[in-house]
């Protein structure tokens, strides 16, 4: 009985255990299912938040990119600009800084935060980061030019859905950056560069300007001079070629063959366009110097500039000395003031085969009593007049007597060619020697101020052409383009640049359709806002029509525009807002024309390439047209081919922007391309997954 009771108790216990077991198993299974289901819902909700956070991060990245591009990159003292401006080899391995949003980006950040209000307790931080490994060099000559990317690191945190857990997410965006200099290598080194200045005409083609003896323009003169300010003003001129080239003084190149440029007289009170400072004693009083001896006589020279002025005794005297042989030639001087003027001296080195033409008064002297000028004798009657002592104007009988003692009978031909006053052509760069010796050495090259072996001596003495250096790209610029060593190879220089500017140096290419205006397209692309042009890079333009700048422009950054083919017309002011920005205008095959109705200043560097009559920078108008001043430089294939009176008569003041003198391979900031750097950031950052 007891055994039976025990067995029954056990059986009842088994039923309870089985029921409990089944129940527990179901409970566990359902719990697991519930947990899975809940997790899935949580994950779905979280996925929604992640999606929101990701969209928010994309908005932050876009706004960060725009702020960097439009504001932060303009602050030259900012860490970002400093780091991007370093030579690639000297860049830190890594550099970063927090981006603090300011208006208007800050307002927009607030708006997209509000739009993503489902993200609770949303906080964020945005940083830019530069890594040296992200960059590669652009062109070897300029070590600061580089292409790479700016990283945007975005950290976002918010509360997890249905809990107080903080979710943190990091996003990495990148945006491409190009750091390039706003210069056309080699050509930028010149205040004025003309590959073929002769343009199929004669060496005297530029002698068109008529000034008075002070150097002021005569009212009736159709031409007004091109006055160059090459920088450095009246600073002491370097005595070594290398020091000239390595300075920031703008150079000049006039190629195409021999040119004789008339030097303008600057007598007594130097006028606006006088050039007396090209000559010994500045072409003014006490300018006589001995050149040779004839028996007991000293033969003397006295050079002065050219002018069309017989309004006073000195002027009449100079004119009468040469009028029989050089009347017309003595009245006009060149349209170029390559070294500036007596009032604003700005001497520089002129490359090419260039001579300066002056009036050379000649005289003989034995004593204070036996002294006299030697006038040009235009015909035999005059020669007889002068030699017989019967002329009321000139008496050279004592000179002829002395000549006969030494060399026998003097005929008119020998007299005129060897002893008479005339116009002379001396190396244009001889002026540098006078300047270096402070106009006190009659034979400055003999003074030793310029070492005889220095190339500068060859330029000053006129031997640069025969030495083969007058048309050579000077070091260190000669190494920029491998295979291009000559200055008269503009098409090759631009051709090489052509592979650089629209190639890896170009920030963007714009193709203009028929009737489409460049300024409109620049506005559409956010590069022109109202009148403010903010290119900050090179733009390569393909256009079917002339590109016209017909509304006033303020530059808020450096910029370069390269037109593949066609003309560029400037009809409105282009000025730098502040900071000395420069707009580089280049047409690879065409002309740049500055409208004659436009006056004032232009902060532009102009380069016109091409062949034949293409490749000119034209200034239509004449001497009565408004003054125009170019703060930059001018480079062209040829000048006013067949149209000097309509394309170069207006005159222009070209003030060299010394930043353009940036030397290649400069690791130090001084004299480097740093101040010309442009920073092109892409507008839309890319998310790196």
């Amino acid at each position: 009985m007891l055994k039976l009771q025990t067995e029954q108790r056990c059986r009842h216990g088994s039923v309870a255990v089985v029921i409990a077991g089944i129940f527990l198993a179901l409970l566990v299974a359902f719990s697991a299912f519930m947990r899975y289901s809940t997790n899935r819902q949580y994950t779905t909700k979280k996925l929604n938040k992640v999606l929101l956070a990701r969209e928010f991060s994309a908005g932050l990245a876009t706004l960060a990119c725009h702020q960097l591009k439009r504001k932060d990159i303009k602050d030259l003292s900012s860490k970002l600009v400093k780091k991007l401006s370093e030579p690639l080899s000297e860049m830190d391995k890594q550099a970063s800084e927090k981006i603090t949003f300011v208006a208007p980006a800050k307002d927009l950040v607030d708006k997209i935060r509000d739009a993503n209000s489902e993200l609770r307790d949303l906080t964020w931080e945005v940083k830019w980061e530069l890594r040296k490994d992200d960059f590669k060099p652009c062109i070897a000559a300029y070590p600061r030019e580089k292409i790479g990317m700016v990283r945007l690191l975005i950290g976002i945190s918010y509360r997890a859905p249905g809990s107080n857990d903080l979710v943190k997410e990091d996003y990495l965006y990148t945006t491409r950056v190009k750091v390039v200099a706003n210069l056309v290598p080699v050509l930028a080194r010149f205040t004025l560069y003309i590959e073929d200045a002769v343009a199929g005409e004669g060496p005297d083609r530029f002698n068109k300007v008529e000034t008075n003896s002070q150097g002021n323009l005569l009212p009736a003169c159709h031409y007004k001079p091109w006055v160059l300010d090459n920088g450095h003003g009246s600073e002491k001129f370097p005595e070594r070629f290398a020091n000239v080239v390595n300075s920031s003084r703008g150079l000049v190149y006039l190629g195409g063959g021999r040119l004789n440029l008339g030097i303008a007289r600057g007598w007594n009170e130097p006028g606006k366009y006088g050039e007396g400072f090209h000559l010994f004693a500045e072409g003014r009083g006490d300018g006589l110097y001995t050149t040779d001896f004839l028996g007991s006589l000293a033969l003397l020279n006295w050079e002065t500039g050219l002018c069309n002025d017989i309004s006073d005794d000195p002027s009449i005297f100079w004119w009468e000395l040469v009028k029989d042989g050089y009347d017309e030639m003595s009245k006009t001087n060149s349209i170029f003031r390559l070294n500036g003027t007596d009032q604003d001296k700005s001497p520089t080195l002129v490359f090419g085969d260039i001579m300066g033409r002056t009036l050379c008064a000649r005289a003989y002297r034995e004593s204070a009593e036996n002294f006299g000028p030697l006038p040009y004798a235009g015909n035999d009657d005059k020669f007889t007049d002068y030699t017989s002592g019967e002329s009321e104007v000139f008496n050279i009988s004592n000179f002829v007597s002395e000549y006969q003692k030494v060399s026998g009978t003097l005929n008119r031909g020998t007299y005129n060619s060897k002893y008479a006053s005339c116009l002379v052509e001396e190396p244009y760069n001889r002026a540098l020697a006078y300047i270096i010796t402070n106009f006190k050495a009659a034979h400055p090259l003999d003074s030793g101020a310029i070492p005889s072996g220095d190339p500068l001596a060859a330029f000053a003495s006129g031997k640069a052409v025969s030495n083969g250096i007058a048309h050579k790209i000077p070091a260190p610029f000669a190494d920029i383009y491998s295979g291009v060593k000559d200055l008269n190879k503009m098409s090759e220089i631009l051709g090489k640049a052509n592979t650089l500017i629209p190639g890896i140096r170009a920030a963007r290419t714009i193709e203009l359709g028929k009737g489409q205006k460049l300024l409109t397209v620049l506005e559409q692309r956010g590069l022109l806002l109202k009148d403010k042009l903010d290119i900050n890079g090179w733009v390569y333009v393909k256009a079917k029509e002339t590109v016209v700048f017909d509304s006033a422009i303020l530059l808020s950054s450096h910029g370069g525009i390269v037109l593949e083919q066609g003309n560029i017309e400037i009809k409105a002011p282009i000025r730098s807002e502040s900071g000395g920005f420069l707009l580089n205008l280049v047409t690879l095959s065409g002309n740049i024309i500055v409208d004659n109705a436009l006056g004032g200043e232009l902060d532009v560097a102009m380069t016109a390439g091409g062949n034949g009559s293409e490749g000119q920078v034209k200034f239509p108008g004449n001497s009565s047209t408004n003054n125009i001043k170019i703060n930059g430089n001018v480079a062209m294939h040829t000048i006013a081919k067949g149209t000097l009176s309509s394309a170069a008569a207006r005159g222009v003041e070209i003030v060299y922007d010394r930043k353009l003198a940036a030397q290649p391979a400069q690791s130090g900031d001084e004299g480097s391309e740093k101040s010309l750097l442009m920073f092109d950031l892409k507008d839309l950052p890319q998310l790196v997954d």
Partner: protein
Amino acid sequence: MSNPVRKHGFSFVEILFAVIFLGFLIAPIFSLLTQSSSGTVQNRNDILAQQHATNLLAYAYALPYDHAFLTPGPARVIKELNVTADGKAMNLGMDEEMFTRSFEVDEHKPADWPHAYKILTVRVKWKQANESARQIKVAGLVSQ
């Protein structure tokens, strides 16, 4: 005398009792199962809603800034959306009747700033089986 059958089995009453008892115990668990099932449906709806929102946003991102679709204005309902991409017609509409999708464009043009911006907000609303309203919102930014 003992009965060997009675010794090793359960009586009918015992089994009946056990089944009834077990039934009482697992009834709440089945109600949880029902809840879980509706959670799964809700989950599916959430995912579909997100997909409808992101589809629309992705399409908007691909459009030019001045495209008519991105004309600024208050929220507008967009159910059907047939687009052509790379010459292929695509249907970005919503097959499910339960969803309502709206699209809002809010434009901002800061003064003296070259960029204009549009904040795009997509809302997808639907009603769950228990008639409670649900919505998700996704917002993005496009710039000119």
